[in-house]
């Protein structure tokens, strides 16, 4: 019996291949967008984990010097002799003009197990690892190059992050030219009876963080991607819902017939569930393949973004993970179940006799619209309350979610009220009918229009954010990169010669010097700034005490970046620790877009006194703009420095802008895909309605309205609804942008941007949504215009 029922159900799809294609497309797109984003996230996270595992940085405490300099070998030997289980690590980098390789040298004999990484598990030629020239364990991707020249033998191993090599400490010392350990790893279990390490050494003991710095910093980016993935998935499900709704609606009479012929309701519902599950599994598999393709296409952009913004190294390629595929399939099935639930419930409740009357359906829809209006108001209030009282990134996204869902629910109410008003104002009978008829269609179209609203609002929101970002960032770059040339030397000796050579050839040579420190217990950087008008006149301060510059250069105060200021909720005048012996009051806060870490600036003289070993190899050079290219060439020729060490302002700006452009290329691509999916949802809904609307259209045709006019009216109606949806999406999108800039961005990145609006983009989006509406409505309208009179006449001879 079930087999016969299934045969009968599947026969519908054979007769309606277009509808099946729409359903498969909806499910596949929803799965693809969701799983693609998940694949990117999973790949990136796996990459951080690999890095953390290999370098052991997350799992073990470490001892290092407060000033960031290497740990003297004598300190290490003293600790070992005292019985402490510590192990030296040399971390450095080998560079060439076109490649760089991070070197991590460990001492396998003393290294705690957690620091040895999976690469050292069995099968390794230990003799070659320990003895010169040694060998480097690298990932297959890294081994493929490009690599700096003159490296020891490479051995491919899993679990090593990209552009990094794990090796013996002696090999690392030879490659980096560093003899003392960069830091000491501390085994978790120390011998009993020893005094605490803090009493045995002056080195600073830092505890492992629950999540690595990179994971913490990139979480916000992944959350952003996940939110987009979820939004795309939801929009995709609108198509599925519409396609399933159409299929159920068209087969309502068949369901009734099957039941009248003796198919029990339970068997019918089982057959329907089997039918949808089969389609969902097949579509899900197609979606996974598509998602993999999307992820693979976006991955280089994501890798670039993560590298540019956070310094997190993620390979630009994607590996296939069966767990990811299975979870995507489960999500597809759950999504299909969610989209089918309403139709299944309707089928279960459908009386065997007395087909549902359109008017009764419209009345029920009217009640739904009122409930939706109330739910929307509740969500808006919730959004306001979370905004007022919530904290953290999750609260930011909760504001976004309540705002978007509330707006989506409000859309049918907005359209119904508006059409009601117009209907009452107009006296032309045909227009009155159009308005009334459009109002009656809103329940059927509302899901697709909601999808369009979400896609448009997301588009406006994200493009406003990106535009604001770009505008502010460019202005900031102009201020921040005030010098015409930025020059680096190979070493300090060359730097001194360079500075002497530059002095008579330029207006000013300003040193750029920095060192890594811990600012308020998190990794940060401190810069030394020379007293010059370049900074006093151009440096972008968000807030400052009146004498900030004088106090800074006198060594009495510090400037800090906005990220540190906001993250630690600091205030001007508050003191922060620069070194163990020095605290300084905050005299000003500067914007520092693109940098996730805390940063502080002190006067140059004070910096040299505090960190005498910090190498001074970089300079900002002030020359007339037109002289910059010639001077750059002269520096390269005279000092034989690599091209990348001499950059003019324009080059650096171009590079920085590229980093930011890449950041939003991913979200931009998702934006376009989401809008496309919303267009498809609209097409599916219009096709659904077209097949159900003949009883409404036939009488109007019969009393003298040509089919062409009816078809044109259908087209115009879709354009009208799309335009109204766009109108509502504007305030929603702007609110979304504001939340992204003022709430989510501050929580995620630590800085706030002034919001700028771009009306030209809105007009472009209006054009796009109208095109989508025309494309979606063309097919149903064309069909209507070509509907044979006999088909329209059937409405009068048959009960539907």
């Amino acid at each position, binding site marked *: *019996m079930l087999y016969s029922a299934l045969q*009968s159900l599947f026969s519908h799809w054979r007769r309606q291949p277009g509808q099946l294609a729409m359903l498969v497309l909806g499910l596949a797109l929803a799965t693809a967008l969701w799983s693609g984003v998940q694949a990117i996230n999973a790949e990136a996270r796996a990459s951080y984990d690999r890095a953390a595992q290999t370098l052991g940085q997350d799992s073990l405490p470490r001892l290092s010097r407060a000033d960031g300099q290497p740990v003297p070998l004598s300190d290490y030997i003293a600790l070992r002799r005292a019985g402490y289980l510590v192990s030296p690590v040399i971390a450095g980098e080998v560079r060439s003009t076109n490649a760089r390789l991070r070197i991590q040298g460990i001492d396998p004999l003393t290294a705690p197990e957690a620091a040895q990484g999976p690469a050292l598990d069995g099968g390794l030629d230990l003799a070659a690892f320990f003895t010169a020239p040694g060998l480097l364990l690298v990932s297959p991707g890294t081994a493929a190059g490009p690599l700096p020249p003159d490296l020891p033998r490479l051995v491919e191993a899993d679990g090593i992050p990209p552009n990094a090599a794990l090796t013996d400490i002696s090999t690392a010392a030879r490659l980096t030219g560093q003899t003392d350990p960069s830091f000491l790893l501390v085994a978790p279990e120390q011998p009993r009876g020893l005094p605490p390490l803090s009493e045995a050494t002056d080195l600073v003991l830092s505890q492992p963080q629950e999540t690595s710095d990179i994971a913490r910093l990139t979480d916000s980016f992944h959350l952003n991607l996940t939110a987009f993935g979820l939004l795309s998935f939801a929009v995709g499900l609108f198509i599925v819902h519409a396609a399933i709704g159409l299929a159920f609606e068209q087969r309502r009479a*068949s369901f009734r*017939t*099957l039941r*009248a*012929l*003796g198919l029990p309701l339970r*068997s019918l519902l089982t057959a329907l569930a089997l039918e949808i599950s089969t389609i969902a599994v097949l579509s899900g598999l197609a979606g996974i393949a598509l998602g993999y393709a999307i992820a693979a296409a976006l991955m280089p952009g994501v890798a670039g973004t993560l590298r540019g913004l956070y310094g997190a190294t993620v390979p630009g390629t994607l590996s296939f993970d069966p767990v990811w595929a299975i979870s995507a399939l489960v999500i597809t099935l759950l999504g299909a179940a969610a989209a089918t639930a309403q139709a299944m419930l309707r089928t279960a409740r459908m009386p065997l006799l007395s087909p549902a009357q359109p008017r009764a359906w419209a009345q029920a829809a009217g009640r739904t619209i009122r409930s939706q209006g109330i739910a929307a108001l509740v969500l808006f209030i919730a959004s306001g309350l979370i905004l007022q009282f919530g904290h953290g990134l999750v609260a930011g996204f909760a504001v976004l979610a309540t705002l978007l869902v509330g707006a989506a629910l409000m859309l049918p109410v907005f359209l119904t009220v508006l059409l009601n008003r117009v209907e009452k104002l107009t006296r032309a009978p045909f227009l009155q009918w159009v308005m009334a008829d459009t109002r009656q269609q809103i329940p059927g179209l509302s899901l697709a229009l909601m999808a369009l609203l979400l896609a448009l609002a997301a588009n406006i929101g994200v493009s406003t954010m990106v535009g604001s970002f770009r505008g502010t960032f460019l202005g900031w770059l102009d201020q921040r990169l005030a010098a015409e040339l930025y020059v680096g030397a190979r070493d300090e000796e060359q730097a001194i010669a360079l500075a002497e050579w530059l002095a008579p050839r330029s207006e000013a040579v300003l040193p750029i010097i920095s060192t890594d420190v811990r600012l308020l217990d998190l990794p940060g950087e401190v810069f030394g700034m020379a007293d010059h008008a370049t900074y006093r006149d151009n440096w972008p301060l968000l807030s400052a005490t009146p004498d900030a510059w004088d106090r800074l250069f006198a060594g009495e105060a510090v400037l800090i970046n906005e990220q540190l200021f906001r993250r630690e909720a600091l205030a001007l005048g508050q003191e922060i620790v620069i070194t163990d012996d020095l605290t300084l009051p905050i005299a000003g806060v500067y914007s520092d877009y693109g940098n996730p870490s805390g940063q502080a600036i002190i006067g140059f003289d004070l910096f040299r006194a505090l960190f005498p070993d910090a190498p001074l190899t970089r300079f900002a050079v002030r020359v007339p703009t037109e002289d910059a290219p010639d001077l750059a060439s002269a520096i390269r020729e005279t000092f034989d420095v690599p091209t990348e060490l001499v950059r003019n302002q324009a080059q650096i700006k171009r590079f920085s802008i590229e980093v930011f452009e890449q950041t939003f290329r991913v979200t931009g691509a998702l934006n376009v895909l989401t809008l496309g999916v919303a267009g498809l949802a609209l097409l599916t809904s219009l096709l659904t309605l077209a097949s159900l609307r003949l009883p409404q259209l036939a009488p109007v045709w019969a009393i003298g309205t040509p089919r062409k006019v009816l078809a044109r009216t259908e087209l115009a109606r879709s354009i009208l609804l799309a335009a109204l949806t766009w109108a509502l999406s504007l305030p929603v999108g702007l609110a979304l942008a504001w939340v992204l800039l003022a709430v989510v961005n501050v929580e995620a990145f630590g800085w706030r941007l002034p919001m700028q609006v771009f009306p030209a983009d809105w007009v472009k989006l209006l054009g796009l949504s109208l095109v989508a509406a025309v494309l979606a409505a063309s097919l149903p309208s064309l069909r209507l215009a070509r509907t044979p009179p006999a088909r329209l006449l059937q409405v009068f001879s048959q009960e539907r």
Partner: protein
Amino acid sequence: MVNSFLNIESVSKSYPGSDGPVSVLRGVDLSLAAGETLALTGESGSGKSTLLHLAAALDAPDSGSIRLDGVEFAGLGDSDRAALRREKIGLVFQQFNLVPSLTVAANISLQARLAGRHDADLSARLVERLGLNAVVDRYPEQLSGGQQQRVAIARALAARPALILADEPTGNLDEATGDTVLSLLLDLVAETNAGLLMVTHSTRLADRLSRRVHLSQGRIAMPASAA
């Protein structure tokens, strides 16, 4: 009635209306013997279709008893009612109610397959007798009204039901086609020895059946009598 196959006793049914319940059937008694054909006539709204739906276990009465082949309908759940229809009843509707996505051949065998007793020979004979040979691979929308109703009759008979319930089976057909379709139905009912309860407006068609019952305002207005 002695040896009656379908027994309807004191059946009442009402539907909710804007001014309170609207009584459609008021204590109707009716019975049908195996192999007997009975026409149920009456004005629009007299309760003919409602009585047919109750007899088909598509709906349940407010009070009274309906038994088919000794099985009391009261207390049967959805699955049991569905099984009863599948096993014992063949339904012919005014609107044909064919499954549009199935071919004529698949439509004809649908109920028999659901009941698990598909007989290809019987289906082929029905196709032959009803003159559907040329259209077995077509879909319902490609058929005329008369052809669709013949498919519906074939579907009802292909499952070898003991009782055929037909609701205005010629209501959507012109007079000549209606006459042809009814003749075929009566011939096939006689050949299979099934009982037939047919709702119709037409006294002319009703007279072609062995008995006729007239319903008026939910009551039997004319006692069962030989035509």
